């Protein structure tokens, strides 16, 4: 498995654990549980983990990896953009149908953080799918 695949798996696992953690705590603790969202920050460790041990003359990544990562990044951007626009619409609909004059201050960080999570998760899953589709999934 290439380093990029390991990093993608790491991101997927961290996000799933963080989502499960937040979903488990928020119903009981409410607003006080929001610091659990900080679990998502562990994703930031991904670039520093799984550094390849290269033999002389060996390369860590090449044009195929770049093509896959570009596709995954574009997929992540498309999902993130769609999510962000829809999430920004939600408060308006909420105000119109419920007759509210204002929205909670908690809505903005939820929109931003969820958008980042959507981007990271889509990019990681796309990376894994594209590597599988391109074949050569053999152990390194």
């Amino acid at each position, binding site marked *: 498995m*290439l380093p990029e695949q390991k990093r993608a798996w790491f991101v997927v696992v961290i996000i799933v654990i963080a989502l499960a953690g937040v979903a488990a705590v928020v119903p009981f603790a409410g607003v006080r549980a929001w610091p659990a969202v900080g679990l998502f920050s562990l994703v930031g460790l991904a670039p520093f983990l799984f550094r390849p041990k290269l*033999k002389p*003359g*060996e*390369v*860590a*990544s*090449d*044009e*195929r*990896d770049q093509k896959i990562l570009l596709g995954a990044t574009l997929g992540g951007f498309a999902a993130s953009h769609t999510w962000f626009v829809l999430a920004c619409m939600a408060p308006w609909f909420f105000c119109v149908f419920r007759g509210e004059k204002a929205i909670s201050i908690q809505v903005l960080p939820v929109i931003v953080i969820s958008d980042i999570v959507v981007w990271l998760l889509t990019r990681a899953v796309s990376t894994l799918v594209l590597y599988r589709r*391109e*074949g*050569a*999934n*053999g152990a*390194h």
Partner: protein
Amino acid sequence: MARTEIKNEIRRLRFDRDEMTQEELARRAKCTRQTIIAIEAGKYAPSLELAFRIARAFGKHIEEVFHS
């Protein structure tokens, strides 16, 4: 637009070179072993630059390694 399928002789050429390993070919062509596996299996069409490097690794002309 119809896609042109690119075939290659990498497996045979590796065999002719005393079973050159995919790792050795990857090292010579400056790409990853996974890319060599994908090209051999016909799942990835290399760029012209990489195709030239692979051909050079075998000491062949590009058309002797890749063809449609």
